[in-house]
């Protein structure tokens, strides 16, 4: 069976191979990313000048904003970091021949196109009387998501997210079982690479938070269609309860997106400093701590809903505690580089940028955790800037770091480093130009999700939109180096990063055999 690959359709539609499924996930993530990026680019183009230029009405703009959020979270970041890199490298790194449940693994993948199709359909069926699609934001708060959107558009979104949720739950079960049960002989849990640790913690978060989202979505669905009153005060319900249920999922979701990036960055920093990661156990348990505390901080997204002040104080304190394990990670990366023999390769550039920009996003997060300050900047562009610094520059930089780090291992080809460097620099300058000015806009009081704004916000909006064009050039360079690498076909050696890249995947060929580890590796 070793390198006996099935025929094309069997291989890609009916796959039970973790590497092929990982490739499918990554391809899916790139397509979704382009779609979500297209939506955001049009929004930025619209906001370049005050007044309404391209959109026919504000509903469409809000719909673009909502779908951009949902697509980027559920169909770009999660499939890329968990489905893509998790599938590819967790089994390779822990010395397992495949995932624990290879068939269920493929089910996890195939539910995602279903979810994406439902979400895309929703954009073309009636939402409200003023337009097609769902425009209630990715957070889907009622009553905007119930009586506010009587059309079937939001029902498609609900079904899509349920499918995506099941996909992630099955994926989580698969990863936890694989990591607990299939580590190579001698690889104790405390010798496991940090990427595997990060996916382990992420999977627990998915497993325990997604069912709550599923229930909340079902409540929305029944409120909309069969007349239950969960979120309807007239029947004794409370729209606020949706926010609690949603953020009980939504806050762990934030860590679901960023923890695998932490894992990727740890490997890259260690490889290109030619040093083992500083404080390995601290790094692993910092992620566990982030995961555990991440479950009890959700209402910091809800400071302005009229919560009791004691609750605000609790959620404020609990949220600030998360800065401690996160700080452990940041300082451990710095300590790993300290005195190391640093090579500024493309993945290392992404990793450096990740650390720098994630700290900015993290620090604005510490500000926002303060209930008093958050009351002033809640739902302004300050929040948009904050979460794009941790996502668009944290999670996405983590994805690009991992992609440039492992591209040769996955495809067997090396990319042109000048094209990849152009991708990095355009992207780096572009996203900073987009999002840094949004801090100023937020501080000036510009609200989120609006299509038009007063002239006083014009300057920094213009700068921000210029940044979007620069980012677009970066994305173009990404596609160019990707295509170029497959056309030119420079063969990648087994361990093309040389000394420092010492996890198990570098002992295999590039790309690895169809089924690896027929004789399990022994870890000393």
């Amino acid at each position, binding site marked *: 069976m070793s390198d006996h690959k099935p025929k094309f359709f069997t291989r890609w539609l009916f796959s039970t191979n973790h590497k092929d499924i990982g490739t499918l996930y990554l391809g899916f993530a790139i397509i979704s990313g382009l779609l979500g990026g297209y939506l955001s680019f049009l929004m930025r183009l619209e906001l370049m000048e005050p007044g309404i230029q391209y959109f026919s009405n504000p509903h469409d703009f809000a719909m673009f904003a909502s779908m951009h959020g949902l697509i980027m979270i559920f169909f770009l970041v999660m499939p890329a970091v968990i489905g893509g890199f998790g599938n590819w490298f967790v089994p390779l790194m822990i010395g397992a021949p495949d995932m624990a449940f290879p068939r269920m693994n493929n089910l996890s993948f195939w539910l995602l196109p279903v979810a994406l199709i439902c979400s895309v359909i929703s954009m073309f069926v009636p939402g409200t009387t003023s337009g097609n699609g769902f425009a209630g934001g990715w957070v889907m708060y009622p009553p905007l998501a119930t009586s506010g959107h009587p059309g079937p558009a939001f029902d498609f979104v609900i079904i899509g997210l349920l499918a995506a949720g099941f996909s992630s739950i099955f994926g989580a079960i698969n990863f936890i079982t694989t990591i607990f049960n299939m580590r190579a002989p001698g690889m104790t849990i405390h010798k496991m690479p940090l990427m595997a640790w990060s996916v382990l913690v992420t999977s627990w978060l998915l497993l325990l938070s997604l069912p709550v989202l599923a229930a909340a979505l079902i409540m929305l669905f029944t409120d909309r269609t069969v007349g239950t009153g969960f979120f309807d005060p007239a029947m*004794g319900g409370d729209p606020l309860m949706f926010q609690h249920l949603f953020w009980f999922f939504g806050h762990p979701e934030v860590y679901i997106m960023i923890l695998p990036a932490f894992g990727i960055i740890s490997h890259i920093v260690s490889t290109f400093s030619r040093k083992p990661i500083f404080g390995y156990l601290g790094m692993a348990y910092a992620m566990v701590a982030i995961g555990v505390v991440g479950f009890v901080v959700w209402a910091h997204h809800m400071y302005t809903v009229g919560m009791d002040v004691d609750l605000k104080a609790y959620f404020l304190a609990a949220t600030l505690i998360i800065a401690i394990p996160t700080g452990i990670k940041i300082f451990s990366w710095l300590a790993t580089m300290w005195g190391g023999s640093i090579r500024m390769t493309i993945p290392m550039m992404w990793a450096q940028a990740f650390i720098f920009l994630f700290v900015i996003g993290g620090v604005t997060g510490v500000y926002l955790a303060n209930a008093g300050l958050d009351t002033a900047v809640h739902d302004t562009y300050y929040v948009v800037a904050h979460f794009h610094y941790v996502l668009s520059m944290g999670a996405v930089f983590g994805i690009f770091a991992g992609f440039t780090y492992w591209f040769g291992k996955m495809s067997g080809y090396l990319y042109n480093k000048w094209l990849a460097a152009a991708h990095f620099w355009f992207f780096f300058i572009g996203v900073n130009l987009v999002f840094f000015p949004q801090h100023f806009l937020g501080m000036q009081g510009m609200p989120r999700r609006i299509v038009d704004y007063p002239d006083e916000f014009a300057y920094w909006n213009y700068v921000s939109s210029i940044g979007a064009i620069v980012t677009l050039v970066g994305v173009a360079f990404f596609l160019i180096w990707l295509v170029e690498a497959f056309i030119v076909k420079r063969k990648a050696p087994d361990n093309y990063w040389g000394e420092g890249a010492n996890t198990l995947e570098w002992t295999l060929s590039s790309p690895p055999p169809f089924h690896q580890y027929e004789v399990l590796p022994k870890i000393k």
Partner: protein
Amino acid sequence: MSDHAIEHDYHLVEPSPWPFLSGVAALVWGLGMVVFFAGLHPRSAENPNGMMEFFFSRGMDMYGADKVSNGGWFFLILGLLLAAGVMIGWWRDVIKEGDSGDHTPVVQIGLRYGMIMFLMQEVMFFVAWFWMFFEFGLFHEVRASWNPDVLESAAAYADGFGVNAGGHAITTINAWDLPLINTLILLLSGTTLTWAHHAFVKNDRKSATFALGLTVMLGLAFIYVQAVEYIEAYGHRMTETNWLDSNIYGSTFFLATGFHGFHVIIGVIFLFVMWLRMMRGGMTQERHFGLEAAAWYWHFVDVIWLFLFVFVYIVFALN
């Protein structure tokens, strides 16, 4: 098929059409859900019986006041049938692989982990429903007192959990009637299931099959009693203005017990499949994880019911 020896006990599954077909089934089912519950194509007065109107108008309307006959159920049923077909094919493959010895000890440990985590996510799913129930049951007045300025009548809202919009106390189902019978049925089914398992471990297939069959019958009895209760409840809905579905208690009641009932149906099917396998001489004294997984699932369903019975039926009624 292998070129050289594979020296590990893991199970490398051959390519399989089922996951992809599951995706197809999920897509059809999802379309069916939207059409059935929300409707995609409203009936126009000009052409009420066109193709689009028939298949894409809201299936629920068949049960509403106007009772329009339509095909809004079509995609939902088709999706469910496809899903059922996929599940039969998929699990038949799993059983075949199990019987052919692919489920080595290490693979069985993996299956155990998988089932435990599946149950954990099921627990979290019910946590959400109980969260709603307890939130409204315990903190309704507190929440009203936080927001007197935004609620038109904080006082009326405060005792809203047991009171409907008209300010009348709602009528609920008597916990010591059908729900008590159902509790006894489920608890009894737990004991017959344990009987079946112990008998099977002692290789007494005859009493194991009998006891498992009894468990399935008890599960069916539970579903029957629950159906009677629901039909009864539906009848009251038509006649009583203060019936429980007129407020938030009814929403939590129907959705929480409804999802529990749905899980009971799954559990009965799970147990029934294990019964069929036993009848056909499948599973062995040492290796019968399917039976154990079905038992775990059944006990989980049992525990959820006990929580529902104690809190949603009894404690609420005491209020």
